[in-house]
């Protein structure tokens, strides 16, 4: 998975959770949960969408790695090698 593909996957998932989010102004290192006011239920949906879209298996222990756009991209590109298609 390329970085662009990873970024797109994150953006699409975020837009589904927070439809009116302005992702253009979002800092790559900004805390997603804080900046987009995502609560734990939203976050669970986000993880679900992201996993479905990319085929990357995401454990609860991986949640801290989905903190910001840049950590998400890093995590997805790193994991995409050993994917579990769903």
């Amino acid at each position, binding site marked *: 998975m390329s970085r662009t593909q990873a970024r797109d996957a994150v953006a699409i998932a975020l837009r589904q959770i927070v439809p009116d989010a302005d992702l253009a102004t979002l800092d790559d290192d900004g805390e997603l949960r804080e900046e987009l006011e995502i609560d734990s239920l939203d976050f669970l949906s986000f993880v679900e969408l992201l996993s479905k879209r990319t085929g990357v298996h995401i454990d*609860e222990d991986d949640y801290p790695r989905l903190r910001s756009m840049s950590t998400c991209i890093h995590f997805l590109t790193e994991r995409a090698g050993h994917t579990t298609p769903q």
Partner: protein
Amino acid sequence: MPSLGADMDAGTVLEWLVQPGDSVRKGDVVAVVDTAKAAVEVETFVGGIVEDILVQPGQEVSVGAVLATIKDASSPSDHTQATKPQDRPIPERHPVAKQPTTKPRVSSPLVRRLATERDLDLTNIEGTGKGGTITRADVERAATLRAAVRPVATQQPRQRASPQARRLATELGIDLSQVSGTGKDSAVRAADVRAAAAIHAAERPVKSTHVSDAETATTGTETQKSTAMRTAIAQLMTRAKREIPHYYLSETVDLGETMGWLRERNRTLSIAERLVPAAVLLKATAVAALRHPELNGFWINDNFLPGSSVNLGVAISLRNGGLVAPALRDAADCSVTEVMANLRDLVARARTGRLRRTELADSTITVTNLGEQGVDTVFGVIYPPQVALVGFGRVADRAHAIDGLLGVRPVVTLTLAADHRATDGFTGSRFLRTINDLLQHPEAL
């Protein structure tokens, strides 16, 4: 038009989901109604064949007005009203022979519920309906009569007005106390405000703020919607702080067991099946409320009315600002997994504005989980007429002493705001202790 909460006087039909001729069962969603707070799905409490739709989409009517009539399928001659009338003129009082039996004759569950809400004894109400049946109008009249006999000791006579009227008055800059109302008990209705505004504008034909009828009728724009939401919250919270003598308690809860249990459980589950801590906290609160019924119910007319089950209100913040607190119904009887599923469903629908009538009107106790936004402690305001509000702060790793040893544990501050008229601190503290104990054994929840 059903009452969808203590602060609602009127509602606008947004959409009909049935047509004349459709057959409906008790509990079917038949219409969507717009209140100051949200679009709400309205169920029918009787089954049968839809006969007439009386209120068209876009039309605002007061609580109690007939929205549609449903013909009872079993006895074709008998008509049952989907909601009982209020706007219908009360028939001339032809003396109805007093019922020799003490058992009051009531036509609908709605009337029974209204009587309970108004704290009226049905056996003391004279029925003017068919065969001496007690109608909604009879209950309303009895409530008005009693209010006249027992005037509430308020400092100032407050102008009665529908929420829509208040909102409109604010928007149009009209002083409500200067408007004469044409509604029930001289309550000011939206139409009265519009009329006053028209006179106002005619007297001073400067630059009139143009508000078209369609706009005001449907509270169309985002801004109007959020203003309406703010007004509704303002009214309810002002009432809470004016009427309820709150007392506050707080307890520190070690969530080590709960978080460990969740972690183990979620490890083996697909993402969709995973639980969030909130689901466990809510379930524990519901079970505790069941064990301490003094905190689960309503304070109405100087009396505590216990809730018949635990309908756990959950404060949900909306993205465009504002707050709703719909209920997880019968939460104490649901498994943690069911609580989780219901919570996801409830939050999703709250945010898309599709809640059901029963969810908005029936909460017996409410939980706020502001910890998600990062604060340590929540000091809540009770939703009247409920008598307790439970708050969970942020779950954070802290130094925590257990058995003489200092360790790092996930800890949360649990708080209770309770109505001192209904309970004392002793009851409240036992309630918090119960929640704490339950959270030490999450597997048993």
